[in-house]
């Protein structure tokens, strides 16, 4: 068993990236995720593991520093919150196009615009449907505990290098700011153990020069490149779906929620079962690829689905696509940095499915 600590989600993530053998962090302060950069700065990771740490002049610069580092085969990372993630979209699109691995953390806050610093899940569309320009996807991991903030650091890098594609950890202010017990893994070495045939570290006489680019002015070649990327995304859909089911075996009603919202709904499930209502919770852990199949499988066995989000209703579209009209899919959301309470969600569930 590793070391157990009481930590904020943001701090646990920062500690975990050092232990995961991250090579470089480039970031810019923004609430509610500044603890990541602050924690790393206090840890002096260049002394602990040789990890590079640099506060960039902007989120735009930070993601492009990640691009440069990733192009040399390094495990590079950036973190931000919603408005800053919007600024990084250009770089993320380029990284997918150039097939560069990296880890990005979005500790979501309420929007649109400058919005609020309270927790939110309003960046679901941006995270799962591309985010920037072009046909692309990034793997999206949604932690719902401080432990998962730590665990997904290592997992994120692993998946990023497996697919040579950015991986986004989609967290929110509640998970980033809360403290829980967290068990940290042992320090991993910072050595790279992947295929390095594509990296730009200087052309040696024994190989062709390597080029990192997303540009191809020949449309037919560009289409081929797009097909290659799409095949990669299909592979992610085939192999990387992750989810958690709680009390689903005998459930008549299903709540679908992720991240902090799933924690709230876990309590709703408890409260409902105390009242004799058989409710289960499906918590998607990967938002892309989405656990569509498991929802399809469950639709035959249940009477209704309630999707709960800290948004006006984004993930619910994927739930409805999966349910395909076979069962009623209701939605409840809170916005602007507010969160629902467990009994509030139960009230909605009863009103939607039991009081009719």
């Amino acid at each position, binding site marked *: 068993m590793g070391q157990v600590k009481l930590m904020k989600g943001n701090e646990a993530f920062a500690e975990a990236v050092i232990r995961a053998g991250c090579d470089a962090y480039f970031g810019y302060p923004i609430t509610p995720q500044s603890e990541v950069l602050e924690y790393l700065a206090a840890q002096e990771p260049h002394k602990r593991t040789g990890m590079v740490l640099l506060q960039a002049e902007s989120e735009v610069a930070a993601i492009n520093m990640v691009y440069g580092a990733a192009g040399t085969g390094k495990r590079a990372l950036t973190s931000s919150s919603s408005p800053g993630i919007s600024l990084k979209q250009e770089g993320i699109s380029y990284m997918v196009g150039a097939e560069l691995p990296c880890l990005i953390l979005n500790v979501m806050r309420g929007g649109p615009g400058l919005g609020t*610093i309270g927790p939110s899940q309003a960046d679901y569309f941006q995270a799962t449907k591309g985010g920037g320009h072009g046909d692309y996807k990034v793997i999206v991991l949604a932690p719902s505990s401080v432990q998962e903030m730590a665990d997904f650091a290592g997992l994120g890098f692993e998946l990023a290098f497996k697919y040579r594609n950015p991986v986004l950890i989609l967290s929110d202010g509640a998970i980033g*700011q*809360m*403290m*829980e017990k967290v068990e940290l893994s042992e320090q991993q070495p910072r050595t790279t153990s992947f295929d390095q045939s594509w990296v730009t570290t200087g052309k040696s006489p024994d190989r062709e020069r390597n080029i990192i680019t997303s540009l191809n002015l020949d449309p037919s070649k560009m289409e081929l490149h797009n097909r290659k990327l799409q095949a990669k995304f299909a592979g992610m859909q085939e192999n990387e779906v992750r989810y958690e089911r709680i009390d689903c075996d005998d459930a008549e009603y299903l709540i679908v929620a992720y991240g902090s919202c799933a924690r709230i709904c876990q309590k709703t499930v408890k409260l409902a079962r105390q009242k004799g209502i058989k409710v289960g919770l499906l918590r998607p852990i990967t938002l892309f690829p989405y656990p569509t199949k498991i929802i399809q499988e469950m639709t035959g066995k249940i009477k209704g689905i309630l999707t709960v989000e800290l948004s006006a209703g984004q993930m619910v579209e994927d739930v409805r696509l999966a349910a395909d009209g076979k069962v009623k899919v209701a939605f409840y959301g809170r916005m602007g940095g507010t969160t629902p309470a*467990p*009994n509030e969600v139960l009230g909605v569930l009863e009103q939607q499915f039991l009081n009719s």
Partner: protein
Amino acid sequence: MNEEIIIAGFGGQGVLSMGKILAYAGMMQQMEVSWMPSYGPEMRGGTANVTVILSDERISSPILNQYDTAILLNQQSLDKFEPSVKPGGILIFDPNGITRPPQRKDIQIHQVEAATEASRMMSSKTFNMIVLGAFLKLKPIVTLENVVHALQDSLPARHHHLIPANEEAIKRGMEIIRKVS
């Protein structure tokens, strides 16, 4: 055991760190713990609150709207969270600066004159530990020994000389808490 607590007051009163010490001590007793702050742009002087849960089971929602215990340290917090105490639950407040005291009849109300006591002890920084002591008198869910351990582990070494004063303050809080209704 499952204890759901809200601690609320002015920023700078030590609301968040009091919650953290409580959670830390709970962790040392092998409990599941969560500490969910309201976080805001105000570094000092604004309102701050934190939800702390200590439980024998895996904690589901760290975000709640009803609490077993509410520790409310200014008027705004009292106005906001008095209705959120579960029937039969506990409300602890410091009467210093309070013009509208709590009114509910279906909960236990206790007061602790922590601000007055802290100034008597010539140490305003021990205010939150006096309040913590008051809470632990009513709900001894963590031991004083573990609270002291929590202080040792979470305070930077340069502040360790303050631990005896904090321990004293916790004991004082246990003595001066008084049931109002």
